[in-house]
């Protein structure tokens, strides 16, 4: 029988990883990700999880060991945040270029300096182009279920790519939520054991990570990009099955609110939950507003996004990272390029909010919509909540 328990989201993620039966976990501590791997190491120590736990000496090595383990044919898991993700940077590209499935939870956190342990998306936005499948979850239940989905997507023979599950640090990772944990059999039916297509095998030797001369490098890159683009269909398929298995309604881009709304708020990650409350409140007050929540960030689901915002005249795009020197935050940049040149393109206004853990209460979204509709938000971007003395 499925159990419904009150638990910290990090611990639920650790449970999900345990139920996915990884062979190797390699990790290095960083707040706010630590509770996940602490819990996993306890499972291993108590014999509840039959896996090798490698307590490496840095995140660079965590990712390097993950690459080695995945190349040897293991199901691999790691988790990190912020500076840790930045330290992995070099190896993240190599993991995807070698087409090695593995799952990494990123408890999103701002980057130094000044040092801040709190949430925003600047860590993952600096890693946009690593060639991994990237998902964003909004609450604990999703964090659990998308961990299994991530293994299944990455390990699918049509994909063979590493997958990041992004969840907001603290706001989600440290939240205690009611979470339904299904029976192991249900998970086993959803996520089959991993069968690597290619691995370091002395019975059938292969060379991983060779030199790419100019005559082959571009082709190799194109193949990786194509694999990522093609993964979208598999992500859809896996999410459909996830919906079927667990009784959900997830999509690549999810919407909520008035279907005829001309203004749509676009979010990624846990702010979507606050926006949902704001949108419901505005709808109840007779104001037609909708929200679009981007669940799949890489590969970017262009068609699904277009469908989700069809009919909109104005998009209020909430970014949780600054792209210094650019005209927009990363999500708004993405959406502008998606719409560029289209006659039906909505106006895109960009609000950068919740930086470095700054609170964004529900009322603020109502205010953002009002200002956007009056044309009072900046043409480039508005840094929400900026201390005017700064």
């Amino acid at each position: 029988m499925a159990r419904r328990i009150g638990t910290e989201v990090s611990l639920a993620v650790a449970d999900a990883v345990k139920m996915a039966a990884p062979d190797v976990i390699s990790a290095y501590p960083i707040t706010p990700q630590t509770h996940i791997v602490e819990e996993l190491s306890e499972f291993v120590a108590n014999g509840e999880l039959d896996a090798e736990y490698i307590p490496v000496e840095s995140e660079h090595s965590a990712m390097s060991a993950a690459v080695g383990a995945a190349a040897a044919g293991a199901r691999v898991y790691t988790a990190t945040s912020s500076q840790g993700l930045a330290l992995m940077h070099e190896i993240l590209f190599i993991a995807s270029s070698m087409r090695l499935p593995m799952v990494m939870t990123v408890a999103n956190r701002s980057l130094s300096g000044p040092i801040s342990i709190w949430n925003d998306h600047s860590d993952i936005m600096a890693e946009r182009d690593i060639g991994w499948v990237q998902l964003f979850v909004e609450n604990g239940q999703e964090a659990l279920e998308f961990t299994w989905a991530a293994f299944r997507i990455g390990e699918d023979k049509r994909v063979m790519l590493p997958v990041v599950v992004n969840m907001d640090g603290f706001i989600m990772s440290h939240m205690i939520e009611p979470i339904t944990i299904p029976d192991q059999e249900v998970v086993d039916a959803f996520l089959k054991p991993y069968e690597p297509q290619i691995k370091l095998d002395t019975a059938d030797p292969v060379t991983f990570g060779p030199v790419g001369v100019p005559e082959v490098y571009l082709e190799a890159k194109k193949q990786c990009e194509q694999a990522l683009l093609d993964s979208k269909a598999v992500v859809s398929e896996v999410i459909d099955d996830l919906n079927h298995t667990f009784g959900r309604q997830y999509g690549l881009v999810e919407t909520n609110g008035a279907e005829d709304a001309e203004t749509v708020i676009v979010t990624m990650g846990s702010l979507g939950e606050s926006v949902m409350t704001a949108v419901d409140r505005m709808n109840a007050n007779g104001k037609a507003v909708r929200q679009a929540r981007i669940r799949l960030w890489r590969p970017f689901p262009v068609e699904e996004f277009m469908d989700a915002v069809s009919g909109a005249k104005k998009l209020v795009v909430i970014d949780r990272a600054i792209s210094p020197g650019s005209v927009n935050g990363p999500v708004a940049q993405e959406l502008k390029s998606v719409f560029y040149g289209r006659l039906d393109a909505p106006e895109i206004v960009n609000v950068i909010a919740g930086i470095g853990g700054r609170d964004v209460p529900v009322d603020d979204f109502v205010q953002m919509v009002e200002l956007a509709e009056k044309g009072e938000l900046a043409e480039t971007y508005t840094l929400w909540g900026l201390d005017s003395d700064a």
Partner: protein
Amino acid sequence: MLKDIDLSGVDKTKLKEIHKMESMVSSGHRACQGCGEVLAMGMVTRVAGPDTIVCNATGCMEIISSPYPQTAWKVPWIHVAFENAGAVASGVEAAIKALHRKGKVSSKPNILCFGGDGATADIGFGSLSGAMERGHNLLYVCLDNEAYMNTGIQRSSSTPYGASTTTSPCGTESIGQHTQKKNMPRIIAEHGVPYVATASPSHPTDLMDKVAKALAVDGPAYLHIYSPCPTGWGSKGEKSIEIAKLAVETNLFPLYEVVGGRFGFTKKIKKVKPIGDYLKLQRRFRHLTEKEIGFIQQTVEDNYEELERFCQATAKCEE
């Protein structure tokens, strides 16, 4: 920290048998003529054999053996980056351990790691130290050509005093490298690793015996192989083995092993040659004056004496 590890049962390499042992690095690779690193790699893999997985750091040996679509490797091989061979090998080892336990793989291959001195003593030092300290069952081999050769002969912390490199050039105000070579085998031995040794391709049976012992111990092992580089040292390709031999015969690079923390020479030089014999065959040292050569000679003697003291201090009482 001293431990008794019995390696007496490990087979010794017979000189006449070496040609029958197959190298896992095939000919046709792109190393320079007389490259000590590739020679050493051939010797190591002759002992390790086909049931071996190789993890290679970025550097000469990775570049010369893997330009796609060719490969010189007859065993599974992985290159990830410059500074992480130790960590990659840790992952491979852990995966094999878990998969073997779960019955998903049948063999337990040797896990070998190759890194240049830069990959070992400098940028990859942390990941190597981590792999050694955590006790993974793998053999890390440092191919020490005493500089970053792949990027064009830049100094490393393993470059010896007085050597001219492109980032420690000799000039009117400099003798070239003005620091002493980092002592990697000793540093790794201090990790409590069960087997650590130095070796040279000029002494193939000694080298290969050490590989066999390193693979026989349970846990991590480290081999530091002296690897002449004609390109970087300004020496003649056909002189590489002679130079390597002179490094041993001058006591510049003593051949020893550390088994369970106990130091012991594997070759004692009866008639020690002067360091000048060694230095004069290499352009990287040609600017040195008699005074500096005298200083290097003194350093070699001091280092050797210190090593002798280590051997005495850690020897078993009954011996």
